[in-house]
């Protein structure tokens, strides 16, 4: 294939040759090329196969609007990205790209049979075909459709690249660095405010990059001025993909994708989240293809793209060129190509009376046919001729060519404006939707609001930039129509194989079919035909869809409306959105001060929220059940120790502390003496149990409140909420002390013997330090708060020491406990021990619909109190009576049968499904101490059913269980004193 590279010109460096590979074949390009320009320069037109019909496809555009030339880009096995636009891939040495959606090769593709079968694959094909028989759906149709769906292959290895996030603020964000955007940024920067200028391309300049030469000095000076200003942040290769509420923008910066050997310290991408006072949108306009049969043949491209390939990359689209246009702008491409030595055979202008530029073309020796429509194209894998016909009617003429350039006009890129909830209006002169009413502090400038022409765009940008910097209201000048344009199917052209959406293979015929089959709303037409739903989101197709639909529905475009613009403007990588949130930084991993000891002791950990908690401490060869049985028996027989540091803790301080707790908790607190503890229940306003925990009175005005591990943050928030909004007059303050204290529970008949030698300044005898006492003391040489509490039913202490001492104190207790064979135990043993005693765990045995009475702790409610959170709700009729579910115990006939937590309870296991459900199992364990399984359950009218049998229906048959009181071990509480 011959080279289409020009001898000179463009923004490429012809001295820097780059080797690259496409489908395994080696090619060369130069520094400054995109993959698309380098392939075109090598005469490679065929770059991919279409999604549905596997038709041969080549480059249509020169930027991110490219619908066809999407490839798989591979650096190594793990760095493989499907569906990347060849027009946006900057060439680097050693680049590897592969075409997609073809087998066995791009040139010979078996799937192309679909093109011949296309009469059988109309719009709505799926809905019509896969209906019968219904039983085939899961086994046949769905797997088949899933295999055919999707384009490209996702990489299977973990992504080895790094992605970072960055938050930023500025006064003005300018999106797009074309003539309007640069002018806006210059004007805003001139005013001295902080400016961020972002553009998706590798270089700033926008449309100026496609101009021959005259504007290049202005461009270079503008960029230099901005770069020298420390208040300006320049972000090339950065796509503003989302425009969110309150002027928040999401930007994806591609940091290293263009480098052959990215430095390891740099991230691949940076996700910017920028909040600004004012936004200037200068996102330009996208050229529309013309719609005619076989308009998707490789070699047919947008006229503006051809001009970019020539002037920016030094590549000719072909040697013999036909131009079909509905606008003036395509003439510029023709004239530039003619000047570069290409043979421009003819310009076919749809209009009867084109502007002065037609005379310029004729003067350059280019034939211009007015009122002429392109009605077809020929050639197999590359365009060979264009069929031109007079608009007035008559036989088409086939004009030979190897490049067919088309221009249906320019569609303003209103995507971000629309994302920001701005209202669009249809402008008939511009044949386009233009920004109308803003929803954010934003203004559009230049081609994206229909202001075309270089000087006009610069002036518009400068005005927008200056007004954005001032923050004052802004009334933009009138738009400037761009001389013509066409929407929809070309006059006299058949609709068959006349593609509108290249990427999703939607033709004008499909749109007409959808309308014939009853679709009226553009949103329905879109979904029925999938037009505009590919990865390019219809950048080149949406307006032509409206044009065809308008004709088929006999309605104006404003009557049809438009589809919704959604983020992202162009695809964003998952890695970019995830940032650091993977691996060890996915979530904070919270560990207690004693965690390292437990890890060294071989503990198995479980996740409890963000906490890692020791689940059990297996000895050699032990599984969970063996370890837990041993740990439970040791606590009951002698003594065990447990890291309870994750327990939530709140220091409640102030003269009104007791009064505050009185109002929050269901219990009474005013009479609780200093040095005493009480088990507290906290309800929500609706009367249901929210949290529980032991509260100790350290001083008259100081309480040490404990909460559940998971409830810590929420309980503090709830308390602060009531304190600040309901009772601001109370002199009481709340401080989270969860992490101030390491907490070690010592439980078992030998607990006092173990800790007695470690306690200084406190008599911990049975008489002087009874159950539910609390005191400050010195423990193992450090200041401590010692609680005499038990969550196991055994004699128990909980020692709180400042967290830095946690490990040293744990080790001191462990050493002191060795003569008593002290056993460290984990959360599983803690759960079994408390279940044997019928102690609830809020959130496991309760589910947010249990009152204190339901949960068996109604005794804690101080009924004489005037008020507390939830009191009035608890007085409602529905909160009492036989319909309530109540906490009960369950025992199976077979002591080895351990029920499943969550299993349902029914009266009659033989009743028809759906059965009448009476409740469910909330906690279930094997109790080594008792020698049989135990379970707790919430059961309708449960306490009245004690002694009865209910059933647990399971897949292998129902299990009969006896309802018992929820206390299985030491119901008299005799063991509390050791």
């Amino acid at each position, binding site marked *: 294939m011959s080279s289409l590279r020009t001898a000179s010109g463009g923004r490429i460096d012809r001295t820097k040759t780059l080797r690259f590979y496409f489908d395994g074949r080696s090619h060369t390009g130069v520094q400054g090329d995109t993959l698309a320009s380098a392939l075109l320069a090598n005469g490679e037109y065929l770059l991919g196969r279409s999604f549905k019909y596997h038709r041969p496809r080549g480059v249509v555009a020169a930027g991110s609007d490219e619908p066809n030339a999407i490839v798989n880009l591979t650096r190594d096995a793990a760095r493989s990205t499907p569906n990347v636009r060849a027009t946006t891939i900057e060439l680097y040495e050693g680049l590897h790209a592969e075409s997609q959606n073809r087998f066995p090769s791009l040139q010979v593709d078996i799937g192309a049979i679909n093109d011949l079968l296309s009469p059988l694959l109309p719009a709505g094909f799926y809905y019509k075909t896969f209906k019968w028989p219904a039983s085939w759906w899961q086994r046949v149709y769905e797997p088949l459709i899933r295999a055919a769906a999707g384009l490209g292959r996702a990489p299977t290895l973990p992504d080895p690249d*790094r992605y970072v996030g960055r938050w930023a603020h500025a006064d003005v964000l300018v999106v797009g660095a074309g003539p309007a955007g640069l002018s806006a940024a210059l004007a805003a920067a001139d005013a001295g405010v902080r400016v961020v200028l972002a553009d998706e391309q590798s270089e700033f300049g926008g449309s100026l990059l496609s101009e021959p030469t005259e504007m290049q000095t202005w461009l270079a000076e503008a960029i230099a001025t901005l770069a020298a200003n420390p208040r300006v942040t320049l972000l090339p290769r950065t796509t503003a993909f989302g425009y969110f509420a309150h002027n928040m923008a999401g930007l994806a910066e591609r940091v290293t994708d263009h480098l052959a050997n990215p430095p390891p310290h740099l991230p691949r991408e940076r996700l910017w989240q920028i909040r600004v006072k004012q936004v200037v949108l200068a996102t330009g306009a996208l050229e529309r293809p013309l719609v005619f049969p076989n308009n998707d043949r490789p070699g047919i491209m947008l006229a503006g793209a051809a001009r970019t390939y020539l002037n920016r990359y030094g590549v000719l689209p072909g040697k013999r060129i036909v131009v079909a246009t509905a606008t003036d702008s395509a003439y510029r491409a023709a004239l530039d190509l003619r000047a570069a030595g290409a043979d421009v055979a003819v310009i076919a202008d749809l209009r009867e009376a084109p502007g002065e530029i037609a005379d310029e073309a004729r003067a350059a020796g280019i034939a211009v046919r007015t009122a002429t429509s392109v009605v077809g194209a020929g050639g197999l894998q590359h365009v060979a001729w264009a069929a031109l016909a007079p608009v007035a009617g008559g036989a088409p003429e086939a004009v030979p060519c190897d490049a067919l350039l088309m221009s249906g006009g320019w569609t303003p890129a209103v995507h971000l404006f629309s994302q920001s909830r701005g209202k669009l209006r249809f402008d008939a002169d511009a044949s386009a939707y233009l920004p109308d009413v803003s929803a954010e502090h934003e203004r559009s400038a230049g081609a994206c609001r229909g202001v075309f022409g270089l000087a006009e765009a610069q002036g518009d940008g400068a005005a927008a930039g200056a007004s954005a910097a001032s923050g004052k209201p802004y009334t933009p000048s009138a738009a400037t129509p761009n001389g013509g344009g066409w929407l929809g199917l070309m006059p006299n052209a058949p609709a068959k194989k006349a593609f509108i959406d290249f990427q999703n293979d939607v033709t004008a015929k499909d749109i007409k079919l959808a309308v014939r089959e009853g679709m009226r709303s553009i949103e329905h037409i879109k979904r029925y035909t999938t037009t505009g739903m590919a990865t390019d989101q219809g950048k080149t197709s949406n307006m032509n869809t409206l044009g065809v639909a308008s004709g088929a529905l006999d309605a104006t475009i404003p009557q049809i409306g438009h589809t919704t613009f959604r983020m992202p403007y162009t695809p964003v990588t998952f890695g970019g959105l995830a940032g650091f949130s993977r691996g060890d930084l996915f979530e904070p991993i919270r560990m207690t*001060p004693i965690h390292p000891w437990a890890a060294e002791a071989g503990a198995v950990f479980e996740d409890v929220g963000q906490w890692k908690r020791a689940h059990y401490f297996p000895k050699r060869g032990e599984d969970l059940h063996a370890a837990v049985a041993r740990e439970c028996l040791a606590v009951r027989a002698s003594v065990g120790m447990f890291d309870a540091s994750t327990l939530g803790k709140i220091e409640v*301080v102030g003269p009104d502390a007791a009064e505050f707790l009185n109002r929050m908790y269901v219990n009474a607190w005013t009479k609780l003496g200093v040095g005493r503890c009480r088990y507290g229940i906290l309800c929500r306003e609706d009367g249901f149990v929210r949290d529980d925990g032991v509260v100790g009175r350290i001083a008259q005005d100081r309480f040490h409140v404990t909460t559940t591990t998971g409830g810590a943050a929420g309980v503090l928030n709830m308390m602060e909420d009531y304190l600040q909004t309901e009772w601001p007059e109370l002199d*009481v303050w709340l401080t989270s002390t969860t*992490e101030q204290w390491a907490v070690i529970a010592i439980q078992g008949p030998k607990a006092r013997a173990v800790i007695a030698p470690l306690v200084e300044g406190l008599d911990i005898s049975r008489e002087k330090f009874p159950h539910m006492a609390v005191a400050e003391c010195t423990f193992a040489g450090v200041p401590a708060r010692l609680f005499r509490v038990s969550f196991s039913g055994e004699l128990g202490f909980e020692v709180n020491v400042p967290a830095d001492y946690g490990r040293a104190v744990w080790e001191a207790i462990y050493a002191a406990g060795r003569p008593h064979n002290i056993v460290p135990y984990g959360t599983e043993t803690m759960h079994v021990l408390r279940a044997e005693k019928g102690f609830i765990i809020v959130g496991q045995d309760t589910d947010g619909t249990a009152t204190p009475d339901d949960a068996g702790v109604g005794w804690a409610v101080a009924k004489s109190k005037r008020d507390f959170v939830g009191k009035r709700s608890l007085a409602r009729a529905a909160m009492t009576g036989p319909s309530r579910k109540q906490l009960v115990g369950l025992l199976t006939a077979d002591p080895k049968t351990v029920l499943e937590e969550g299993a349902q309870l029914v009266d009659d296991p033989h009743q028809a499904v759906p059965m009448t459900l009476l409740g469910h199992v909330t906690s279930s364990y094997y109790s080594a101490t008792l020698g049989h399984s135990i379970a707790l359950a919430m059961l309708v009218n449960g306490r009245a059913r004690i002694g009865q049998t209910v059933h647990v229906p399971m897949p292998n048959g129902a299990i009969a269980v006896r309802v018992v009181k929820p206390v299985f071990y030491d119901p008299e509480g005799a063991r509390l004193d050791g």
Partner: protein
Amino acid sequence: MVETALRRPPLAGLVPPPGDAVVLAPVPPAARFILRVRPAAQTAAGEAFGGPLPTIACRAATEGARAALWLGPDEWLLISPDAPDFTALAGVPHSLVDVGHRQAGITVSGPRAAAALNTGCPLDLDEAAFPVGMCTRTVVAKTQIVLWRTAPETFHVEAWRSFLPYVCGYLAEASREFSG
């Protein structure tokens, strides 16, 4: 003293990232308290502490090695070499709670310190918006911190002890792109 030997502060294992564009380092050990007191007694509380309590929102005041960080209209984080003596405030409603083991601090300094913090902190850290002496509760990604700018290129970050490995790991990862 015996107590010191038994202490294991949460930042003992901090490995600073390479380079000097962003430097992470633990702040020296100090006592930390949360003080809550109503306006009428704020002057007296400041005198007891040995340094003024700032009354402008989100500002810190220092007196020698003592610092008081405004966290709320009646809330300060006090950082000082030793536990302050508040006996003079007996009888005045207030709350003084020791949080010296709840949290610890690191400094994030260097020419790219603000950029590294902005990797996970959404605040505007431009000096005009967040000047030296400003402090606030905020976040580093999924963790709450207290952020205090002590010099144009130096920030003091306080976090609860179990979150410090995450905060330090996150900031070390954020610093990597500036280490080249």
